């Protein structure tokens, strides 16, 4: 028993070390890559941007960027939220980042949780009806959906529901300058969220569906399911309390990783619906070639993703110790 809990501790420590290494690698990349640029940083940054510098501004910037700060003080600057100054938006990068972050977290978080839940429930129900026409149709439909990238879903939903039917707004996260009550504002935000959220869910729940269905198919064959049926328990109880609980494991072990998968999709979807999150900020920064913003957003959102995945992994390992064995192969 003692050695087992020691083993668990070691696995968890290993996990923390892995994620710290990944974070360090990201920070080091964002520190070292700009220094690998040929010529000097100022020419590279401002030479191609839409900003014209006067001679003294250029000299000042050059003096600022040629003082070699070293990796240690770079880390210190990151910790002090000193991530540079955007020359396209004329504001500190940290300010821009924290303004966009809540919208991205709202979109990504709700999309992740909902696509997990929907995928799980439909997967369990499909496995329960195995061999029937409904199940075959569902599996076929999900396989097709799995093949449609969120760029396509996003543009199509925009065409149908925002342009053709005008049911939902085509851009933004809330109506600007609308003087409404708190509840009215919430409804407004929800209304704007529907299309981007639906796009992400449509892109990610088929994967969860197929995963759940496959693991549920194995569970259904287990003897304890026969026992539960023989005891005369109500079908829904057999399905969820006895079956689905045990089919949850493969889904749970991929919870964090699937969140990381969604990042690329979220960038694209935010741009399609002009949703004011980190994806749109990044897109605008790329268009204006605003390197400090690109660098800041890339680094900080990667670190945030790492932190989120790590905490998820630790939490569900705590909830279900079987995961140690399941994810070790």
């Amino acid at each position: 028993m003692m050695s087992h809990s020691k083993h668990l501790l070691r696995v968890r420590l290993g996990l923390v070390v892995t994620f710290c290494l990944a974070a360090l690698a990201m920070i080091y990349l964002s520190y070292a890559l700009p220094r690998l640029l040929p010529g000097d940083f100022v020419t590279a940054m401002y030479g191609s941007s839409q900003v014209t510098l006067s001679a003294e501004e250029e000299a000042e910037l050059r003096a600022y960027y040629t003082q070699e700060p070293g990796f240690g003080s770079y880390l210190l600057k990151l910790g002090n939220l000193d991530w540079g100054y955007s020359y396209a938006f004329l504001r500190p990068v940290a300010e821009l980042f924290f303004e966009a972050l809540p919208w991205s977290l709202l979109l990504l978080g709700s999309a992740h949780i909902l696509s997990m839940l929907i995928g799980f429930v439909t997967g369990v129900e499909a496995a329960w009806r195995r061999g029937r026409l409904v199940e075959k149709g569902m599996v076929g439909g999900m396989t097709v959906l799995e093949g449609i990238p969120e760029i396509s879903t996003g543009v199509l939903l925009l065409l149908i529901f925002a342009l053709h039917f005008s049911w939902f707004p085509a851009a933004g996260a809330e109506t600007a300058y609308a003087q409404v009550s708190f509840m009215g504002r919430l409804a407004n935000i929800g209304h704007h969220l529907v299309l981007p959220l639906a796009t992400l869910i449509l892109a990610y729940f088929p994967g969860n569906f197929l995963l759940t269905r496959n693991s549920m198919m194995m569970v259904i064959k287990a003897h304890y399911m026969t026992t539960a049926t023989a005891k005369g328990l109500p079908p829904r109880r057999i399905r969820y309390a006895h079956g689905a609980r045990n089919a949850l494991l493969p889904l749970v072990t991929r919870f964090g990783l699937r969140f990381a998968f969604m990042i690329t999709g979220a960038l694209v979807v935010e741009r399609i619906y002009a949703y004011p999150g980190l994806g749109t900020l990044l897109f605008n920064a790329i268009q204006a070639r605003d390197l400090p913003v690109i660098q800041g957003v890339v680094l900080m959102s990667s670190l945030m993703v790492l932190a989120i995945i790590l905490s998820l992994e630790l939490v569900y390992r705590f909830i279900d110790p079987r995961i140690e064995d399941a994810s070790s192969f």
Partner: protein
Amino acid sequence: MHLRFSHIVMRDPWFVIGCGLAIVFAAATFLGPPLAPFDPWDMSFTPISPASARHPLGINDAGQDILSELLFAVRNTVGFGLVSGMMALAIGVLIGVSAGWFGGVTDMILMRVADVLLAIPAIMVLILTAALFRPSPWSLAMILALLIWPSVSKGVRAQTLSIRQSLHVKAAAQIGGGKWYIIRRHLIPELYPLYLIGFAAKARMAMFMEASLAFLGLFDPTRKSLGMMISYALRYYYMDIWWNWLLPPILCLSLLIMTVTFLAISVEKVLDPRLREILGEETA
């Protein structure tokens, strides 16, 4: 074993559909330039004109023929996916086999590196390098391959460990087969189903990444790409360009990703009983 595999796979409708689509895309990829009616960079036509007999998909905002653009774009996206997928597969197999076969410290270091890479969001590294250095698409494909091999190598490593324990490999070692002989003669050929799954998964990811990066405007703007076409067309979405400009690249991209998904899913499905057996043996 291999015969049975190909026999089963041919009866799977997903595989047949996937193969059919793959042939169409291969034709578009290889025959694209001669098939294209115009030079896709020729800007001498009337901008934003609807479809006509001469230009089946019309003209875009820069006065370029959209059908020719589309053929070149498919070619670029497919090429990126294939190159990146193949490189990721090669790296993944090499590292997975080494980790599984040699074990010990090699295994520990390689798998730790794999874990670290698995945690890093690949798209972020690509955006950073693309924004700073504006590398060629081929360099980006290679960087992507260097970031996405770990999941391949994890599967290969697990399979290597189990094949190493199997009787025929032990027998080969007993009759004096050397390390490299066994790796070459038994290990590499027997992992072949994993290559198909790994390659399909990585190529799919790479094509999606290419489209996303192009959509975000991180490639050379004159390079034709499905993502770039969607991005440009989306700027005029309030105009009547849906059917001839926006939908064709969307349809192509979806069909392309579907092709790879179908192939991956059908191969995985056929191999599942075998993989399940192996996993069952391990836990027993």
